[in-house]
């Protein structure tokens, strides 16, 4: 999974994200055997408002896949007044996969290479004004920052999901600082030519 830093060789694909969801569900099962809805509740607590984008069925679909892959096993627990509930448990292979994931130091979105190359190409080919592209991009990132910040402000003190939102806010601030540097560079280039 770790890619060469700088040049992303693939789109942020569905497969990549699904693989991480598998790892996450396995890790959430590591403490004790649990029902699907308990796993989902733990995930939602950790993600707070970010969980809203999560597909409700994804947890159950993924648990099924993990079972087929031999990473979890399940047992049916009878209930008197409702249908049986399925309790999932990590297998030895599942536990090994969790440990592998914990030791993996790969990191998301290492460098804004694609946008950088877009600016270089725009300037070189005279396709437009790179500074304008930076302005538009900055607004798109700021819209994300606004959403994350509002969500962060709405979290109660000490919320674990608030910590994640703080991470989103800080990364976007760093992106915006870099976009400012882009604007300065391409503005200066324009004035030199």
């Amino acid at each position, binding site marked *: 999974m770790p890619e060469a830093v700088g040049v992303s060789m693939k789109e*942020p*694909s*569905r497969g990549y*994200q*699904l693989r*991480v969801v598998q790892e996450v569900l396995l890790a959430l099962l590591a403490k004790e055997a649990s029902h699907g809805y308990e796993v989902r509740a733990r995930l939602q607590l950790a*993600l707070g*408002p*970010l*969980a*809203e*984008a*999560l597909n409700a069925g994804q947890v159950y679909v993924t648990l099924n896949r993990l079972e087929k892959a031999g990473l979890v096993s399940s047992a049916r627990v009878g209930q008197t007044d409702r249908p049986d509930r399925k309790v999932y448990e990590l297998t030895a292979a599942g536990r090994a996969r969790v440990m592998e994931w914990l030791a993996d130091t790969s990191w*998301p979105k290492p460098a804004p290479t694609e946008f950088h190359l877009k600016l270089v190409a725009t300037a070189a080919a005279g396709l437009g004004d790179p*500074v*304008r592209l930076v*302005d*538009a991009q*900055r*607004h*798109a990132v*700021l*819209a*994300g*920052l*606004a*959403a*994350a*910040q*509002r*969500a962060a*402000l709405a979290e109660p003190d000490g919320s674990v999901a608030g910590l*994640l939102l703080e991470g*989103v*806010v800080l990364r*976007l*601030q760093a992106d*915006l600082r870099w976009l*400012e540097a882009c*604007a*300065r560079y391409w503005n200066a280039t324009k004035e030199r030519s």
Partner: protein
Amino acid sequence: MNANESLPRAGAVLRTRGLEKEYGQGAGLVRALDAVELAVAAGETLAVMGPSGCGKSTLLHLLGGLERPSAGEVWLQGHRIDQLSEKALARLRRGAVGFVFQAFHLMDELTAAENVELPALLAGRPPRAARGRAAELLERVGLADRAEHLPSALSGGERQRVAIARALSNEPLIVLADEPTGNLDSAATLDVLRLFDGLRAAGQTLLIVTHDARIAATADRLISMRDGAFVEETRLTHGTSGTLGELAGLEG
């Protein structure tokens, strides 16, 4: 791009038409603002961003009647203000417009409460009413326990919160803030940010000129300036949950 087109004109508290400002003359002529069309809706928070020298502070000065335009018009709540007499402008600045500056501009020899009272007293409100209003505003900015402190005994963030309370003293039609967090550390910035977010929620019309992305991100709408003109406009308050999921890399 025309900011007016995205807003119902009738609801605008503050509006400009063809606003221009030039400094110097001959070869040294600098056009600081070029044909700016702006409308700020009632209850809206608008952030204006741009690099140093882009004209954003000049814009704020013209909007608040601190300077006069070279050409164009400024309308506040249906009244044209760019041609008012100095006396009428001074009255406007005391009442209808609240200012917040980067360097706070508090009176050093007055306490926090006295600073906040001052605009109400200057506007002719009875001292008792002015005092009550100041206490209420200091409470609102979380500084009720600092009311009798001099500015020199307050932190930068506290001073700015006093300045924000002062700006609200006469229930202004609009608050104009120029780099309100420019002199603050990140913890104090967060306090001011929460305060602006609260003002927005309470329906205060607010225009913030800033470099600070976090402050700009509290706005309903964002405008970027470059070389004295508007270059980009974005509405920041709608459809946020999809954006959040994308940011967290959860979709798919």
